[in-house]
């Protein structure tokens, strides 16, 4: 919830004068990786920065990504943003770059040879969309968004197997309830509902997902698949427990970890968190792609670099880039976070079973971009608001839901 920004190197410099100009360049890093395993991942980067002679200044927002964006916005508005800012890569960087507040680090990264082994589509998300040479953000890892994390003891106790389609899960739900379990672990926050819904849309088939979100095919916004997706979302909204509203994702994951709920749809970071909670893979929990998903939905997570007007600001950013683009660091980061390294030449043998599953799918070309990468922030905001309302408001029918969602999507893209 903290919308604070790093006090700005500006103030520090004003107060300390130039006395400390010789000291280690400060690297202020704005992020929201605060849950246990995420926190371990960010520590990998922090240690790397320290080892390279930088001074890591941690600016974390426990409230999540939206708070971090708020902080970035105030920082940019005030002219003293954190030098490095974590993000789910996508149109956000392009929007910021268009306003001239981001630093083009393309030259530096190219000179150091950091870009050669990063997939082009991931690099494209760091440009402003008009000029491929200018790069404002770099990916550190790929996150699978549509994993299903399930409790093995729950499924064993209920005598069922994890579902492969949403309808199968809906049929299982009454039995799970009867056995005393919460069928779906859900934290009803806007972004979590959005993530779940996108997984459902993917369950309607990869081509449909592509038409709706990526190629912006007008007919997709009125297709029966959308109504079906809303039907499933409506059914799912009834399968959670009373504590769902405004519950954080890791709080929610606890339900799966403790064997109180059957499954949760969440990104790859949840796997690392389950391990962090002391739960054992394949004994306490298992993972699979979300029901009906033929492919993995990947988002690139990375860092963007605002323009700084402090003397050692860019030096600090450069140290950070050196750190995050080191393949060893990327592997260590992904091992902790449960993601896949962004550099294709990084070692993946140390990754968890779930991550390897996703890594293989991506290598085989079975990957689809997450909506953050393909939709503008305005329309994403409106769609997320709408889903949030639909989830909470049981009186909206799937037909109305699909119609309104389609209307917002086609009116704004």
């Amino acid at each position, binding site marked *: *919830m903290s919308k604070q920004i790093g006090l700005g190197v500006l103030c520090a410099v004003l107060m300390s004068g130039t006395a400390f100009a010789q000291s280690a360049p400060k690297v202020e890093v704005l992020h929201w990786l605060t849950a246990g395993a995420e926190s371990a991942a960010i520590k990998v980067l922090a240690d790397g920065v320290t080892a390279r002679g930088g001074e890591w200044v941690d600016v974390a927002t426990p409230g999540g990504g*939206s708070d971090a964006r708020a902080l970035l916005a105030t920082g940019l508005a005030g002219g003293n943003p954190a030098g490095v800012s974590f993000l789910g890569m996508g149109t956000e960087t392009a929007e910021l770059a268009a306003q001239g507040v981001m630093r083009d680090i393309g030259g530096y990264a190219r000179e150091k040879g950091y870009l050669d082994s990063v997939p082009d589509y991931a690099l494209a998300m760091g440009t402003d969309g008009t000029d491929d040479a200018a790069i404002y953000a770099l990916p550190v890892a790929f996150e699978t968004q549509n994993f299903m994390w399930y409790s093995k003891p729950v499924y064993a106790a209920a005598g069922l197997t994890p579902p492969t389609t949403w309808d199968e899960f809906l049929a299982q739900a009454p039995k799970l309830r009867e056995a005393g379990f919460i069928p779906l672990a859900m934290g009803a926050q806007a972004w979590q509902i959005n993530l779940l819904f996108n997984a459902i849309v993917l369950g309607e088939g990869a081509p449909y997902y592509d038409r709706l979100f990526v190629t912006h095919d007008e007919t997709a916004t009125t297709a029966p698949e959308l109504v079906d997706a809303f039907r499933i979302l409506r059914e799912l909204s009834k399968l959670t427990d009373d504590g769902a509203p405004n519950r954080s994702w890791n709080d929610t994951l606890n339900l799966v970890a403790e064997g109180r709920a059957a499954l949760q749809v969440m990104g790859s970071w949840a796997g690392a968190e389950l391990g962090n909670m002391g739960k054992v893979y394949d004994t306490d929990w298992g993972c699979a792609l979300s029901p009906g998903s033929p492919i993995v939905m990947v988002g690139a997570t990375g860092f963007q670099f605002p323009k700084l007007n402090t003397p050692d600001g860019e030096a600090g950013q450069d140290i950070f880039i050196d750190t995050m683009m080191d393949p060893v660091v990327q592997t260590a980061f992904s091992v902790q976070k449960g993601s896949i390294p962004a550099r294709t030449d990084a070692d993946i043998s140390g990754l968890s079973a779930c991550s390897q599953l996703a890594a293989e799918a991506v290598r085989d070309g079975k990957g689809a971009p997450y909506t953050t990468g393909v939709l503008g922030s305005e329309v994403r905001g409106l769609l997320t608001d709408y889903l949030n309302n639909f989830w909470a408001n049981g009186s909206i029918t799937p037909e109305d839901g699909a119609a309104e969602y389609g209307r917002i999507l086609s009116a704004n893209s």
Partner: protein
Amino acid sequence: MSIVSLRPHRVAQLVLVPTILLTVIGVYGSMLWTLQISFTSSGLLPTGKFIGLEQYFKLFEQDRWHVSYRNMFVLGGIYMFTCLAFGLLLAIAMDQGVRAKNVLQTIFLYPIALSFIVTGLAWRWVLNPTTGLEYFVQGLGFSGFKFNLLNNPELAIFTLVIAAVWHGSGLMMAIIFAGLQSVDSELWRASRVDGIPKFTMYRRVILPMLLPVFLTCIVLLAMGVVKSYDLVVAMTGGGPGYSTDLPAKFVVDHLFDRANIGRASAAAVLMLLTVIALLVLSSVATRLRKHSQSDQGAKPEQGNKS
């Protein structure tokens, strides 16, 4: 000291200059700037181009805005009414010469010292169905007991009302009670001689005398409604859905999280216009009341000055 050579009146005027400058720039200048931004397409930085009323039209298309704007009146109305009514009942009960008055007053009043963040967290914990009241009553054996306001988009707004009334009604009690205490005891003696029932006395004589006290209360409560941003953040985060969103939160979210300052400014301007409209209405009402009162020549004591 050159000040010494100035005339004291000049000094008094100069002393006011910083405050006036600060307010003119900080409050009124900011207001105008926000107004200007609301006519532009600005996203994260106020650099957008002029697009007239476009932001306002888009705002009106957003269901979330309608819900939050309506909530301000629903929350405000119910909260102000409940607070006043509850405060009044408490004050009248306290006025019956009960024992342990000071202890009771201390208990009724302490929430006003707490922040809305603390208030919201405490009540979220009590009202949380899986850990709080519902879980407790179910544990007593009433397994069918449901007290699940936080999950119901139509009722979640009432959790805010409960917390806000808890926070504010003690203060209303204190103000009204002080007013009741200041009523001349001769009046009560006379009413007893005449055999007028207490209820009639309160309704016909005492409460009308306390009208200015109630106005004070309403002003205080209204100022609280505008600040209720903190309470929503701590209790519901605007949810479920955006059913408990308020304009104050809508503006802050769009200002920073959504990085859409054009839209946020348009929403803020609408908030401003609403407040101004209410201020104008209340000053007209006050003037009308004063006008009718001056005919009778009655000027009751302000209770809260005791």
